[in-house]
């Protein structure tokens, strides 16, 4: 099968263009539908990996530390992200506990793990074992990662409760907020650039050779 690495097809309307070199921070948009066609190469894999590992540390803190603590008449109660999901595991609502755990904990965890795995090898210009399924998985997981919705949910819940009980924030909420920012930074980069950066297959010439 013939391949055309010098071309780029718009994902949203199927228009075909010649690839062009972009400077850092530049974005190429489709002339027909204005969707993003190409982003500038995210550049330094080392920096990307460092950010991913930072995200892993923050993720750990967000999962272990209590997020919110409430007190009522001298009794306290605090909860972590896991306990939020677990609270839905009651009676007929129980399937929703799995959904909640997925969108605020498990999908972000999978994103961090897969990205770290892929990037550790990409540093040396190599494709990690399972590179293709890992990138496919990362693209599929992205819409189901909802830490930012979780943060808004925590805020709304606090406002709901603040008239009823005394609310204090735990370390977990700061870690979750940091997780939200870092995850956006690492997971919204152009993954397809990794294909070009690790290109060694003689059947598919690299972009620079075209």
């Amino acid at each position, binding site marked *: *099968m*013939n*391949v*055309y*690495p010098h071309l*780029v*097809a*718009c*994902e*949203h*309307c*199927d*228009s*075909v*263009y010649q690839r062009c070199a972009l400077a850092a921070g530049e974005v190429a948009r489709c*002339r*027909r*539908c*204005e*969707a993003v066609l190409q982003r500038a190469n995210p550049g330094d894999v080392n920096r990307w990996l460092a950010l991913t590992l930072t995200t892993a540390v923050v993720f750990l803190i967000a999962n272990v530390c209590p997020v*919110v603590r*409430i007190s*009522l*008449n001298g009794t306290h*109660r*605090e909860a972590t992200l896991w*306990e*939020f999901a677990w*609270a*839905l595991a*009651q009676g*007929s*609502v129980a*399937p*929703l506990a799995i*959904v*909640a755990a997925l*969108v*605020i904990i498990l999908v972000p965890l999978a994103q961090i793990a897969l990205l770290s795995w892929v990037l550790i090898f990409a540093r040396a210009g190599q494709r990690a074992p399972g590179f*293709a399924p890992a*990138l*496919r998985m990362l693209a599929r997981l992205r*819409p*189901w990662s*909802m830490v930012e*919705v*979780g943060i*808004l*949910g*925590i805020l*709304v*819940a606090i*406002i*709901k*409760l603040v008239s*009823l*009980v005394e609310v204090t924030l735990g370390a977990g909420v700061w870690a979750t907020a940091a997780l939200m920012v870092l995850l956006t930074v690492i997971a919204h980069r152009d993954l*397809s650039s990794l294909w070009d950066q690790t290109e060694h297959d003689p*059947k*598919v010439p690299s972009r620079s050779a075209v």
Partner: protein
Amino acid sequence: MNKPPFASDLSVVGCHTCGLVCEHQDTPGRAVPCPRCGSPLHHRRPNGIARAWALLLTAVICYIPANVLPVMHTSLLGRGSSSTIMEGAVEFWTSGSYGIALVIFIASVAVPCAKFLILALLLATSQRRSRWATRERAKLYRMVEFVGYWSMLDVLVVAVVAALVQFQGLTDISPRIGILFFGMVVIFTMLAAMSFDPRHIWDGEINGGDA
């Protein structure tokens, strides 16, 4: 301004996973894998429109119990009361928290309803290969993709509140079946938006178009 060619004009197809543009091979019933990443190459996602319609209808049906049935049960000193999503928003409004009432209203009523209408519009016009407002419809699709998942807000609010307010005998909040239906609405509309292939919006321009 001359318009760029469509992939079908050049008989190529772009891989949806890795972005490589490959030669289009017509093999009915069997998708050719991308030579670089191995994901199946499709000119259009197979049965995308039918699948999106089915998922959208499922979501609309789930939206009824999601609004009618209670999402949360509060028991305060032995007295219990259940509330629906709208009652939750109204409660914030009457207590003076207009901003939060608005956020809840947008996430739980405005966004899902707008998604239903926009997806139905996109599906109906794409099916007819309409050439009406293609660029605007393309933007609408991207908007739906971008805002859709914020509806999960209600589910997570119930989770947080139910996890915290558990003082045995004093006050206790627990989730109710309505929130399960609401979660299903969010999941099904997201799946419907993913099944729809936005390239269908431009089908009307490909044959006999001005491209």
